[in-house]
């Protein structure tokens, strides 16, 4: 099932949508996704491969072969009681406990990284504040590796904040114990030359809850591959993404949710806006429901808003269902331009056109941004988006008015 669309087709909520509930047609057993820890098991990609066909490979030459990590990223951490972190070696038992490299860049980073950032959330700890991992990059080549272990029944938020100008290939592993609730926000607010290719992979324990929000606003090439597996029944994964691509920016998100345990759920909402003719976004959403994953519920949504002529958004949802015993499965994808009727409606109430456009784009992104519960971060990202849209710092009075109107 492939939908590559740049058609002017805005926000029809059901456009391209369909669901698989009730009587389900099994799609057969697809080939197993190839994974390996040996980089040489992956040929150097040329750009013709399915995995790389959307990516501008010429700019990625430097990361397709092993390199010496130049250590030009400054990583700093802060966090409340209940969270601990340290730099560990490759011999740490959690290193590689979740990751199964699925492409050459991920395998190279895994094979060559030496320092691993290990973050532990204590069992049953309820963190009062987020754990902040800030990465400030300077020009140079870097390998990165992070392992976050959320022990059973812990509840925590971990924020990754990437700024500066660097080349970064990395793997991030999330290991969720039974009943753990881990909320991850990863912000890619790089300078315009940065290259960032990273796999985020989670193993979700029994009844555990994994929320992952990816926000990409800056960088030349940002290619993130969030993948999720379940280690026991009853887990849930919520994957949200926001990309705002401008001139010369290529933002790619490749998701894979592998349902192999019963009674788990996954929900994917990824949204992109593109505001230059040379802007590109790619969204690949693969979901596999294996025969043993009965009672699965999954939905994927991708929406792309083209703010200028010439911008291109590719969207490829893919759902493989190998059992009829599921609760529900579906996906929807649509790419379109500004909805003239929305603009007309807002303008007919006196709102000037540029402000009406900002309202529409903010509204378009709202259901992703609203999953960022760290207020200061939410506000910073909203302000960055407003600035991109040519707006003034937003007037929070309107939001307060909502609260007062609602509770008065």
């Amino acid at each position, binding site marked *: 099932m492939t939908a590559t669309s740049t058609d002017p087709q805005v*926000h029809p909520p059901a456009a391209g949508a369909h669901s698989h509930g009730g009587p389900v047609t099994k799609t057969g057993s697809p080939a197993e996704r190839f994974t390996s820890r040996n980089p040489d098991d992956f040929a150097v990609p040329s750009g013709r491969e399915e995995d790389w066909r959307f990516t501008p490979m010429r700019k990625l030459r430097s990361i397709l072969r092993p390199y010496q990590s130049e250590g030009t990223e400054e990583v700093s951490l802060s966090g409340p009681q209940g969270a601990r972190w340290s730099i560990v070696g490759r011999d740490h038992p959690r290193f590689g406990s979740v990751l199964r490299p699925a492409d050459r860049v991920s395998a190279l980073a895994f094979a060559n990284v030496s320092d691993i950032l290990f973050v532990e959330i204590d069992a049953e700890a309820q963190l009062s504040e987020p754990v902040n991992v800030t990465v400030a990059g300077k020009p140079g080549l870097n390998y990165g590796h992070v392992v976050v272990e959320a022990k059973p029944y812990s509840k925590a938020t971990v924020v990754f904040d990437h700024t500066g100008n660097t080349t970064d290939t990395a793997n991030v592993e999330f290991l969720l114990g039974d009943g753990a609730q881990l909320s991850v926000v990863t912000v890619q607010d790089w300078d315009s030359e940065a290259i960032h290719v990273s796999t985020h992979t989670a193993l979700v324990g029994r009844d555990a809850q994994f929320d992952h929000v990816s926000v990409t606003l800056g960088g030349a090439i940002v290619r993130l591959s969030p993948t999720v597996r379940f280690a026991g029944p009853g887990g849930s994964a919520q994957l949200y993404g926001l990309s705002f691509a401008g001139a010369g920016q290529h933002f790619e998100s490749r998701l894979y949710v592998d349902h192999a345990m019963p009674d788990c759920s996954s929900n994917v909402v990824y949204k992109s806006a593109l505001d230059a003719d040379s802007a590109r976004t790619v969204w690949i959403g693969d979901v596999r429901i294996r025969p043993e994953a009965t009672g699965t519920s999954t939905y994927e949504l991708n929406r792309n808003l083209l703010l200028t002529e010439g911008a291109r958004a590719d969207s490829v949802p893919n759902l493989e269902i190998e059992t009829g015993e599921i609760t529900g499965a579906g996906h929807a994808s649509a790419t379109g331009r500004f*909805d*003239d*009727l*929305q603009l*007309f*409606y*807002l*303008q*007919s*109430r*006196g*709102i*000037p*056109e540029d*402000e*009406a456009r900002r*309202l*529409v784009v*903010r*509204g*378009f*992104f*709202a*259901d992703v941004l609203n999953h960022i519960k760290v207020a200061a971060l939410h506000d910073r990202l909203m302000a960055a988006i407003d600035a991109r849209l040519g707006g003034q710092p937003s*007037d929070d*009075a*309107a*939001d*307060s*008015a*909502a609260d*007062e*109107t*609602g*509770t*008065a």
Partner: protein
Amino acid sequence: MSKLEIRGLHVNVEETEILKGVDLTVSSGETHAIMGPNGSGKSTLAYSIAGHPKYTITSGQVLLDGENVLEMAVDQRARAGLFLAMQYPVEVPGVSVSNFLRTAATAVRGEAPKLRTWVREVNAAMSVLEMDKSFAERNVNEGFSGGEKKRHEILQMALLQPKIAILDETDSGLDVDALRVVSEGVNRVRETGIGTLLITHYTRILRYIKPDFVHVFFDGRIVESGGAELADELEANGYARYGVNEPADTEAVTAGA
């Protein structure tokens, strides 16, 4: 005193002429009802005045207090004092009613309303329309029922205080209770002395909102004008005298609903 003058208005949709010379003047304090069968061009008139991009004005004038409305951008028309309550209000995902109303009020009034008085003002206007407070937190028109959409339109009319309001089939899709509540909301705003152009297919809303003038719209122009008694005539005989077999009375609406 304000005055909306429509003079010799001709409007095309793509290559087809829909309005074929409309002349009408609406002044402050007056309520004009435009009645006509389906497809007569009533809604085209409303959207053309508001500036909908789908409609092309081929000739004629629309003046608000002598200013040429047709040269204004859509938002300028609203700030000049025109308001259109739409038959099919548009969903704006992710934008809360509260944020939308305040942004619109700020634009129309030229400054942000003071938060404290604004909250009171919104709550008062919502209670007239029997709207729950939680309504303000929902996204604009998203998942609204037909009745909620119409209440929301009239709520905006109350808060934006236009000089001239055009209500396009505000009665369509409303049950009796909702029609009463919405009509009361409209009447509250009318009492402030604005001019109202009420576009409708059926006479039933005219039981709640009493027009000073009734105009029959047919084939892209006004074919007959009179006082409120013209609505009674339409209620009794429908649009048969204009060669259209469509009733205009309430009973027929209820039976056919």
